Each structure stands twice: as structure tokens, then as C-alpha cells.
């Protein structure tokens, strides 16, 4: 009978590298398949290499836009990457 860990921790927007939050997505993204595209990531650290996102290991493949400061209807924030394409390792 299949057995799996039961995770009670709610989904978060944290992108984590070596235990440190290095980015925050604009919302919680469901990950299914080999790729995920984040509309927006608030950069908080080094986003290179293997990253953890809600139990998945992901790696950034490319980024559409890099902005030091983004100002729009949701306020001012930065640095921000938009259109962040990530490979889902597992």
C-alpha cells in the first residue's frame, strides 16, 4: 500500500536555497509537470542553482525582465524578476 509523508505545512510563496529564503513568488503556484513559470519573483538572494519551492526542487532557466524597482498599482517593490521560467527537477 503506498505510504507517503503527510505535510501539514501550508503552501508558501518562499523560494528557498540552503535553508534561506532567496525569493518570493507573487502567489502560490501549483507545480505539475517539468516546468513552471512564475509571473513575478521578488528577489531576496542568490537564485542560481537548485532551489526549493513547496517541496519541489527547481532551477531557473530564463527570465523575461529584470527590474531594480517596479512601480505599479500594487505599489513599489524590487528587485523583481518577471516571467521566470523554471525547470522542475523533481
Amino acid at each position: 500500500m503506498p505510504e507517503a509523508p503527510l505535510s501539514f505545512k501550508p503552501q508558501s510563496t518562499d523560494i528557498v536555497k540552503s535553508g534561506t529564503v532567496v525569493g518570493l513568488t507573487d502567489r502560490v503556484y501549483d507545480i505539475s509537470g517539468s516546468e513552471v513559470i512564475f509571473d513575478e519573483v521578488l528577489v531576496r538572494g542568490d537564485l542560481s542553482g537548485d532551489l526549493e519551492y513547496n517541496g519541489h526542487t527547481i532551477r531557473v532557466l530564463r527570465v523575461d525582465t529584470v527590474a531594480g524597482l517596479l512601480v505599479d498599482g500594487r505599489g513599489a517593490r524590487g528587485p523583481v524578476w518577471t516571467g521566470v521560467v523554471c525547470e522542475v527537477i523533481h
Partner: protein
Amino acid sequence: MAPVAVGNTQQWLRLYSENLANSYRASGLIQHCVTKGETREGQVLGFLEQLLPKRAAVERNVVIADSQDVQSPKFDAVLLDRLYWPRLFQQDDTAVVMLESVLAAIEVKSMLNTAEIKDVFQKSAALRGMKCAGKGSGPCPPVVSAFAYTCDNLLLAFFDFACEYTLAPALSPTIICVLNEGLLRLCRLDGRSLVPEDVPSAGLIPAALLGPDALFVFVYTLSSWASVGGGSLGVYRAYGREVFGAATAVCFDEDYLSAVVKNSDIRQRARGAYLRPGKATFEELYEASRNSIGLSERASR
């Protein structure tokens, strides 16, 4: 000093579980069936009233109505947002409340068997099929839960729960707690983990969390519904890290569930393997059930 294997909160909840089990046995001496049933409802609902956040009231004997005048069956209790919503009707011990004001419905069963599981699913279908006139305090239509004092055959109950969910996913109850034995609960697969999912929908996985901490996880789940995302849950989990940090759950393979709901003959054949469990493990009974319907190769999730 050696690390403590069981934390205080976990111990308290296990002691509450023992108390409830003793109260159940004591009420078994009452011969009048209705009085016996009411006493048992009162025991567990009184316990929930003591422990759950006050943001939601535990209201007993409730009929839920929607704006189209459709009424649910009577539920043993509901978690009700009394802060912002009026009741529609109250007389003696029975209340009629607005669909949108209900955070969750609770059914209490002395023993979880096939008939009682069907009853919970029928009541859940009636409630989850009702129409909300606007945004509710929680998920609308509300989610449904059940508590059972005993269960003669938990694997059979799990099989029935999984089949009933697969046949009508959106109308299913979310969680059934069996005191001191385990929890049957809807989850979704996230990576390699099962993650509890509150609102029933297609594509979820019926899972069973086995063991003596069922009441703790049930109280946690009801607290999460009662607190409406108040942010206390992460802290609550820290008080039960021995339970929440290392929990695992079992589930059926997808190919198996798809096969058993195809027709009632296959379902009855698969079910037959669980009827006389003896000393066999869950794993052995499951393998026997798979074999009985011609599924030998395991297609793991």
C-alpha cells in the same frame, strides 16, 4: 536528559481520547438507544467546545438552509460563525442557520461501518449540493466532517470512504476521525508528500493516517476551519511537532481505485478481501484485494 518522545500536548490529547473512550463504554450501559446516542454526541461535542477556538461556535442539532429554501438534513453539530451571521430559527435545542454562516458540519457516530459511512456521504452530498447566495465565512458550501468512537474494520471503512469519494468527489466529506485508530482524509499529492486538502474536488487522494493521535489531528483540522486562517496553525503545529512533523499516511493506488468504481461486481470482489481481516496487515489485505480483481502489478503513484 533524554529527549521526550511524546510531548505534553500529544499526551493530553491521548488522555482526552482515553476519557472519551471510557465515556463511550460507560454510556453503553444505557439501554434507551436515543438517550445513549445523545449522551455520546454530547460527550465529544462538549470536548470540542472546550478546545476549539471561540471564533466559531459549536452549535448542536442544526438544520442548514440556503436562500432558495432548500434545507439540509439535521447535522449533529456545525461550526458556526455567530459573530457576523444571524440564525434563521431557534426553538429549544434545534436551530436553522444560513448556509453561508457555517464553517463546517460535524456528524457523530458510535461505530463507523458501511451504513454509517453511507449516511455521512448522503448528508454531505445534500449539504455540498446546496447553493450559496454570496461569499460565506468559510468555504461555501461548507465542508463536512465526522467523528466515530469505534470502528470494527478500519481498512474496510477506508475502502468504502475511498470508493464513495471517487464516485462523487465534490460531494464527499473531508475528514472522518475514528477515536484512537486513525483518520480518513482527503489529500493532494505535492511532490512526494500528501498535503491535506479541505475542499473536496476531483483529483484528490483519499488517505488514512493511522494511530492513537487521530483526535489531535482532528482537533487541529477543526481548529483550522474555526480560526478561518487566523495564522495560529503554524504555532499549534509547534506544540505537536511529534505528531505533525513525522506523520505519514497510506493510500490506494490510482489503478486500483479506478478499477473498483467501474462496476459494483468488481467493487464487491475487491471489498471481499477486507471483510475478515483476522491478523493480516493492511498491506497483505490490500494485495489480496488487488489480486482478487486481477491487478497484480503495482503502478506506484
